C-alpha cells in the first residue's frame, strides 16, 4: 500500500473531535428561548490544520468547509430544543444550521446535521480577516431545563 507521506504543512485541513466521557455533559439553560454556547470538552481523534478549544472551532483560512456533527441529547423531558452554529467572527448565525428536536420522555435522542459553510474574508474593522471562529449553541424553547449531552462527534473537512 502506498504511503501518504508528510502532508501536514500543505494546507490540507480536516479534524474529528468527540465527547466520550461516561458522565453526561450538562449545558446550563439560564433563560427560555435564549441561545447558550455548548462548551464541550472534546477529545481529539484526528486534527490537521484546524483546532478546537472550549467549544470553539478555529478555522485558519477561507474556503468551503463541511461540518458534520452527531450528538445524543437528553434532559428537559418533552422539551423542545434548537441547536445551531454561530460565527463568532462575524457575530451572526451560520445560515441553514438550525435544527430543532424534542427530548421526548427520558430517552437520549441522536441528532445529526451536515452542512457546507462558505467562509470568506471577514471585514470586521479596517482589515480583512481570513480566520473564523464558530461555536455550537443551543436553546430551550419551552422552559429552563438543562440539556444533557451523552456523546458527540464533530467532523470538519475543508473541501475547497
Amino acid at each position, binding site marked *: *500500500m*502506498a*504511503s*501518504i507521506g508528510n*502532508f501536514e504543512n500543505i*494546507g*490540507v*485541513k*480536516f*479534524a*474529528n*473531535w*468527540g465527547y*466520550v466521557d461516561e458522565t453526561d455533559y450538562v449545558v446550563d439553560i439560564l433563560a427560555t428561548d435564549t441561545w447558550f454556547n455548548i462548551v464541550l470538552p472534546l*477529545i*481529539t*481523534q*484526528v486534527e*490537521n490544520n484546524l483546532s478546537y478549544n472550549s467549544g470553539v472551532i478555529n478555522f485558519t483560512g477561507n474556503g468551503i468547509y463541511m461540518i*458534520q456533527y*452527531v450528538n*445524543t441529547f437528553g434532559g428537559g423531558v418533552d422539551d423542545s430544543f434548537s441547536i445551531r452554529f454561530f460565527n463568532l467572527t462575524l457575530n451572526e448565525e451560520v445560515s441553514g444550521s438550525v435544527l430543532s428536536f424534542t427530548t421526548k*420522555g*427520558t*430517552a*437520549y435522542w*441522536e441528532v*445529526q446535521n451536515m452542512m457546507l459553510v462558505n467562509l470568506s474574508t471577514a471585514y470586521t474593522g479596517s482589515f480583512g480577516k481570513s480566520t473564523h471562529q464558530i461555536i455550537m449553541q443551543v436553546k430551550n424553547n419551552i422552559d429552563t431545563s438543562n440539556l444533557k449531552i*451523552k*456523546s458527540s*462527534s464533530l*467532523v470538519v*473537512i*475543508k*473541501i*475547497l
Partner: protein
Amino acid sequence: MALNQFTTQSAWINGYSETIKNIDFRGSRLPFEVRLFGMEYNSVYNFDTSGSSGNGLAPLMDGYYLINVSLSTKGGLNDIMSFWAEWEGLQSKVRLVWEQKGGNTWSTNYNTIIPVFSGSYSNARNFKFYVSSTATSPQVLNFINFNVSIIKIY
C-alpha cells in the same frame, strides 16, 4: 474548474446490509464485533471487499478515511448502546452512544475519521465495527439496517 484539496489517490465505498446477525449480549458489557454479513455494495473504488467471509471493507491505500454509518436497531430494551469503528486495532476515540428506549426501532448515525497506515502489513486489512451495551435487557439487539459509506479524504 475549481480543484478541491484532495490531490492524492481517491478511494471510497458505499455498502449496506439487511441481514446482519442479532447480537445477544446475555448480560455482558464486553464489546461485540458487528459481523458484516450480507453486505451489498453500490460503489467501490480502491477497496477490497472479498475478505475472509466475503464481506470485507479493506482500504487499498494509506490515508485518512471519513466513515459514516447509519443504523436501524431494535430490541436491547432500554439499554444504553455504544458503537465505534476501528482499523487493525486502532479504535476511533469517538463513540456513538444511544438508548434503545422501549426496545423500539431507532435510527442512529455515527461518523469519525480514521487513519490507515499499513506499515509492514502486506495484505489489505478491514475496517471493523463494534457495539457494547449496558446489557440489562433480556432482549437481543437486532440490526435492521446497516448502511456504511467510507471516503478517503487524504
